[in-house]
């Protein structure tokens, strides 16, 4: 049985357009893997295939040996796979605190009946969740702003809140879709440290889509490169940086400005 996330020969077609073709790669437990490629290469599509938003036309996506296609997104999250979104999708009317709290729902021991009876066990769980959520927010320096409406946060903080929210689902694999987009260099620097910290502290693996090469090369142990929905290279950052196909398709040749 395979562990971690494994894509086996996955193809996804939208009518005549092939978004992903015969793609195979794996993310093993504890690994930090980067997924890069030009715009439209199919990176976010891989996320959507892995989280149940799309169903592959052919091939299989496995997570810890369980075949994911056919599962609803919330079921896949319960298997231990959580994601952030490229275009931020926070719960706009909720506070910072409640955004994270909402991601704890499927671990609730006490449901709707207990919410009505409000017995001791229910209240204890509510207190426990509060502590847990605040601890999580604290790691990301957001605990002080827990009661603020989430949309009052800066763009970078909203991105970090999305990561906190995904972590609250207690994932074994975290999918980060361009977490550094819109961040300034200082924020990016701290994000790099944070990604490593999250991986070590929460004992999970991370699949990272990102355009910022400094961040990807700095933080990932292995990189998968996509172009037109196909894998053109896979390897450690040093090998990827030297790979002629990657340079041609994405990184650009010497003298040309790198993709930001």
């Amino acid at each position: 049985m395979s562990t971690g996330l494994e894509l086996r020969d996955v193809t996804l077609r939208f009518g005549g357009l092939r978004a992903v073709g015969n793609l195979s790669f794996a993310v093993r437990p504890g690994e930090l893997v980067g997924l890069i490629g030009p715009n439209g290469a199919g990176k976010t599509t891989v996320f959507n295939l892995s989280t149940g938003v799309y169903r592959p036309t052919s091939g299989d996506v496995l997570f810890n040996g369980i075949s994911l296609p056919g599962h609803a997104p919330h079921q896949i999250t319960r298997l231990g796979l959580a994601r952030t979104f490229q275009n931020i999708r926070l719960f706009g009317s909720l506070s910072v605190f409640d955004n994270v709290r909402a991601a704890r729902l499927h671990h609730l021991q006490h449901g709707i009946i207990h919410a009505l009876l409000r017995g001791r066990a229910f209240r204890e769980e509510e207190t426990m969740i509060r502590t847990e959520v605040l601890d999580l927010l604290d790691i990301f320096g957001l605990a002080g702003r827990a009661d603020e409406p989430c949309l009052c946060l800066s763009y970078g903080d909203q991105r970090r809140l999305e990561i906190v929210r995904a972590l609250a689902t207690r994932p074994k694999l975290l999918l980060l879709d361009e977490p550094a987009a819109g961040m300034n260099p200082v924020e990016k620097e701290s994000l790099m440290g944070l990604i490593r910290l999250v991986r070590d502290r929460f004992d999970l693996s991370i699949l990272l889509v990102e355009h910022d090469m400094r961040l990807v090369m700095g933080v990932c142990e292995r990189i998968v490169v996509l172009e037109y929905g196909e894998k053109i290279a896979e390897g450690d950052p040093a090998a990827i940086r030297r790979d002629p196909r990657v340079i041609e398709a994405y990184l650009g040749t010497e003298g040309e400005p790198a993709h930001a």
Partner: protein
Amino acid sequence: MKPTGAHLALFGAVLASLLVSLGASHINDYYLDILLNIGINVILAVSLNLVNGHTGQFSLGHAGFMAVGAYGSAIVTLQLGGPMLRVLGGGGWFAEGLVFLTALTLGGLAAAAAGWLVGLPSLRLRGDYLAIVTLGFNEIIRVVLQNTSPDGAFGGALGLKGIDSSTNFFWVFALAALCVYVVAGIVNSTYGRGFLAVRDDEIAAGSMGINTVRYKVVAFVLGSFFAGLAGGLYAHLRTTISPEGFNFLKSVDVVVMVILGGMGSTLGVVIAAIVLTVLNEFLRDFEQYRMIVFALLLVGMMILRPQGLIPVGKFFGKAKRS
């Protein structure tokens, strides 16, 4: 179990409605009738708010579920009330109360079952489908009831007459308090964040492990249950009900209360239910223009103040931390 503030508030409200009910004979009949209407409208508006406000779906058929509850409970008291009283050993406030409570509960459960049947297929979809389906359901219920035999259990277009006048101040306001307690209690719990998450972003909610379809169905079934309770209270207040009383315009009345009060704001919706019920009394002379005013009010609200008169978090509902 140690009672919490919420428990005490519910208990206090029920006790208060019992005390007022005991002295209700001192209240002018006309004012008492308005008060009871207010209570019933509070139940309707707060329960619809769970669906339209907190969960962000759009139901246009609340009167349909009210009709199911009204007819269901009226049939129970009309057909089974006598035998049940005999079994319980004649009259008395306790036996009569028990029969009425049974009738209300069965009416509410019938409405909840109807809500489940309507909601389960339509809530799997996103967007405006629920509005269309519930609007259709409302009309179907009305037309079906109208076309039953006048001699049958449903009474056809003439409806049902001679229903026991069991509804009093206690029942209306105890159940209104229960409705507010249930909706506010659920929504403010961690479990209840799911309704708001579904409303804000259904895709993100799914990705956070929230079973979005289940949340929508729970909200809809619970909302239908309370609409059924309100229907039962209404039937036993008016003592006659007819299909026309549960038409589309009745549903719109409730939607207006929710939008005016502020979608997702329980306090706002309660106040809107009170204000609009009282306003209706003052505008009796202009009744034919009422729907024009409501329509203009809705358009005006959507443009000028889409968050409602009393938005969420204005007074209550702020995230509290210990």
